[in-house]
């Protein structure tokens, strides 16, 4: 029996676009072609004929290379977006919200905090002042996964983006679905919520993100090598 991996690699290797096709695709095709070949041999064909017949079942080798490359690239694009944006962003959001919950459930008295604020404001202020840390974590995770500058920025300020989205959704629901008369009369109150829960945290998160926006040598190489990375 021939080495199917070599036969396949030779044929796929003729086409520049097929060079990205990995060992797994070759292994899968080899398994299929071997079975086709065995089937022909079992029906009485000579081995050389069976090999030719099996290889002819592939059809268009160039098309196969292109199709696999397209399918693989699509998969990689999706994985890269997940690794560079969604995972760091969601990790930052989760950590930030958990921290807020912990702070809200803690017992705050004046001796424990170095500033004077209303007891209800204290957990919020501590949460706000610690947001740069979470922004840094999001941007760092994105950078480690190879995220571009804009992706790191988005991952770092993701908690604010999510909060803004949520607030807009709630406001629109109150305005157009519930037709809440209070919201219709006082639309400016929306800003009073958006600033403390989306704008100020975004600024605080950004403080932590900025140091991670600098391009590393690896990032520069990846950026120049990819035209539409996430």
């Amino acid at each position: 029996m021939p080495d199917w991996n070599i036969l396949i690699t030779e044929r796929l290797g003729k086409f520049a676009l097929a060079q990205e096709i990995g060992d797994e695709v070759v292994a899968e095709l080899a398994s299929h072609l071997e079975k086709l070949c065995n089937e022909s041999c079992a029906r009485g064909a000579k081995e050389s004929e069976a090999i030719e017949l099996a290889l002819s079942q592939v059809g268009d080798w160039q098309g196969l290379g292109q199709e696999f490359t397209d399918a693989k690239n699509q998969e990689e694009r999706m994985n890269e977006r997940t690794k560079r944006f969604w995972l760091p962003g969601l990790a930052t959001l989760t950590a930030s919200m958990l921290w807020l919950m912990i702070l809200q459930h803690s017992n705050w008295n004046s001796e424990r905090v170095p500033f004077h604020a209303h007891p209800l404001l204290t957990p919020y202020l501590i949460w706000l002042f610690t947001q740069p840390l979470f922004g840094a974590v999001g941007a760092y995770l994105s950078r480690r996964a190879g995220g571009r500058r804009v992706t790191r920025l988005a991952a770092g300020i993701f908690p604010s983006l999510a909060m803004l989205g949520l607030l807009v959704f709630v406001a629109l629901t109150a305005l157009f679905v519930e037709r809440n008369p209070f919201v219709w009369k006082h639309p400016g109150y929306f800003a009073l919520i958006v600033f403390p829960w989306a704008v100020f945290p975004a600024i605080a998160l950004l403080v932590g993100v900025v140091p991670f926006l600098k391009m590393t040598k690896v990032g520069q190489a990846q950026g120049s090598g990819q035209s539409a990375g996430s």
Partner: protein
Amino acid sequence: MIRTELKRGTAELAILSVLEKGPLHGYEIARQIAEQSKGALRFTLAALYPMLYRMENRGWLTGAWETGANGRRRRCYRLMPRGRNMLAPMREEWASLFRVMRRVAKVSHA
């Protein structure tokens, strides 16, 4: 023989349908479809595997590597819930196409 364009449209439904009965390797998927269609639907490898990969990307199937008795690695494809959910609407779509064609072109089921 069925025209190529129509075959392309039926391919996804055919793959989902054979996988509905249980997980299969690429070779077995192609063989079962050829057998059940009495040779009318035959996949080249150039058509079958990229299609399997695309269906996997969409979350309709999942492929898992296993090693056969001869040491050869091969991928076993399994239908995912999202793919199973696609089956009924796709079947209905094809059934309605046949109904329309029967009226318009006097085509009947084989």
